[in-house]
């Protein structure tokens, strides 16, 4: 035990080296913690996706995308479908959406989504998990029913020069008469919508939407039909029975889509990210281990006569190795703690950069620029995280110093004292 204490004290013998080594270890630990935070956020993202998708069905008018102004694909479900589906056994929630397309430059378009404030905000293609992260302002609430307010995707917000970083509520104008080659004009007048918040979904198409209250949508785009109807089933095992019930209630007027293909796609994205994160963690911890390895090799070289002296005085190899490893653990712990401080102070500034350089290159183009914003990253201090850091620091120190410790253990006292 005493040798452990001497080992800890030894770590502080050379202050200059202590700080240099601590910083060299702190940097890999800093990146390790960043990777850990990214990994946790990705896992949470995936968990939410799976929770929300597995027991959800999407209904659209048969053979149609159901957008009110989409050329050749504007057939919608009848309003009565809501009540019919709600009465199907095992159905616990029904969320009607009305969708319109808003033309942008270069043939692109955004999707205007009318929904009941408080319902899940699901996204066009691959975004069925819904409820993207609000990055500025606030979400729609029940109090916004009947109010011309909207929550806008970050990419669509750019179109209106809305910057989430300096967000202030602002007004945009929706005009149902706008058209292009795939969007036909609808009668009606332009209406102002107050943008109360900006969200990030994680991919480009998902960020090109505007959520507004359903009643306001119907004022702008004259329709009482339903573009999409999301049906939540009480348990995933009852999804098939609900499908049969819906088929009986609506006949062939609706296509029933189990949004698992989108979920599977996002799962593959999450798996890619997890692989990158795991690789990053392995790399950073290896770097920390290499720093410990070389430091302890230098220490062993510098203290060779001291080690010989201890052996001559009757110290056991086990005691000398314990002292040596304790020094490595102390160095690693100081470095890891410093890395933790860096993490809590600096991670908010550099995580995006790290994500862009490490994970983004492995993602499909439509996710590369936007997925980061959708992750619910946490850089806070927590006991489990601190414990993880200390346990990791201990493991890195033991592994990193093991070769030098082995050499010390096998060093004869005479060799160690050769320069005496």
């Amino acid at each position, binding site marked *: 035990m*005493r*040798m452990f204490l*001497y080992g800890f*004290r*030894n770590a502080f*013998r050379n202050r200059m080296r202590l700080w240099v080594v601590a910083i060299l270890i702190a940097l890999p630990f800093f990146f390790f913690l960043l990777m850990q935070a990214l990994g946790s956020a990705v896992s949470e993202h995936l968990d939410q996706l799976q929770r929300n998708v597995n027991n959800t069905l999407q209904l659209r008018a048969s053979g149609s995308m159901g957008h009110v102004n989409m050329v050749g694909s504007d057939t919608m479900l009848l309003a009565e479908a809501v009540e019919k589906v709600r009465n199907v056994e095992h159905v616990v929630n029904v969320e009607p959406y009305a969708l319109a397309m808003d033309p942008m430059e270069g043939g692109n378009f955004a999707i205007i989504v009318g929904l009941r404030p408080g319902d899940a905000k699901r996204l066009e293609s691959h975004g069925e998990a819904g409820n993207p992260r609000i990055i500025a302002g606030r979400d729609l609430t029940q109090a916004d029913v009947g109010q011309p307010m909207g929550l806008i995707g970050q990419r669509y917000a750019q179109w209106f020069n809305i910057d989430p970083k300096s967000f202030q509520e602002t007004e945009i104008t929706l005009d149902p008469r706008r058209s292009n080659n795939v969007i036909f004009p609808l009668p009606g007048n332009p209406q102002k919508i107050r943008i109360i918040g900006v969200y990030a979904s994680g991919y480009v198409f998902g960020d090109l939407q505007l959520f507004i209250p359903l009643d306001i949508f119907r004022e702008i785009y004259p329709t009482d039909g339903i573009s999409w109807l999301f049906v939540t089933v009480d348990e995933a095992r009852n999804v098939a029975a609900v499908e049969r019930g819906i088929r009986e209630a609506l006949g062939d007027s609706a296509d029933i889509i189990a949004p698992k293909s989108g979920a599977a796609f996002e799962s593959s994205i999450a798996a890619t990210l997890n692989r990158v994160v795991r690789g990053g963690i392995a790399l950073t911890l290896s770097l920390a281990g290499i720093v410990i390895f070389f430091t302890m090799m230098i220490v062993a070289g510098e203290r060779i*006569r*001291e080690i010989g*002296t*201890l*052996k*001559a*005085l*009757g*110290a*056991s*190899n086990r*005691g000398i190795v314990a002292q040596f490893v304790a020094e490595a653990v102390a160095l690693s712990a100081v470095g890891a703690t410093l890395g933790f401080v860096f993490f809590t102070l600096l991670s908010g500034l550099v995580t995006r950069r790290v994500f862009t350089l490490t994970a983004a290159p492995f993602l499909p183009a439509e996710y590369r620029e936007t997925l980061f914003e959708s992750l619910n990253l946490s850089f806070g201090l927590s006991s489990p995280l601190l414990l993880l850091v200390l346990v990791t620091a201990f493991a890195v120190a033991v592994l990193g110093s093991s070769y030098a410790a082995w050499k010390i253990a096998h060093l*004869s*006292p*005479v060799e160690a*004292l050769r320069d*005496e």
Partner: protein
Amino acid sequence: MNKQNVERAFIELNNVMKEYRRGADIVVALDLEHLEIDARGLLGVIGPSGSGKSTLLHLLGAMDRPTRGTVVVAGQELEMLKPVELTRFRRETVGFVFQSFNLIPNLTAAENVALPMEFTGRPKEERRRRALELLEQVGLGHRAKHRPHELSGGEQQRVAIARALANDPRLILADEPTGNLDSQSGQMIYKLLKEIAGERLVIVVTHDLRLSERVDRVVELQDGRLISQEASTSRR
């Protein structure tokens, strides 16, 4: 060897040879046919550089093994001991004093002296008390809390001697203990070694013939061989 022999010949070396490989050559560092040393007194080992003095000290202190032959110290045939037993032998039977003192720089004088006692598992209070006693004995009770860099060379060597005495070993091995000291400090160290040699065997390796005259007996080596062993003039 019977009990009487063990008591009379505390150390006995028979046909001891130590060879080193230097490149393709084999160098004979020590080649002793027979040597016996009593259990008490101050023994000087003299000889020019490369004569095998330090090699002899290393063999006696169980720091190295002979290429062949037997080394018996305090009744223990060292080449028969396992590494763990050699460590215990060094801890309990031998105390080392080095030319460069070899104190642990970040420990105080008292902690340095207490260090060997930690290896034997003595209680903390006992270690502390004995360390202070030993420092008093070498005249450094007032320097107990000083670190090595705060002490003069002579003081550091006295701390090292106190450390060597910590576990009350029967054998003290001192390799050029005055080599890094001025003559006044050297005299003081020899006086101290002479004092402690009343109760145990102290073997001092030195090339300083003047100091070697203060020892009880002199063993002279040359080219690894024993060329003379006699009682010193001071003893006579």
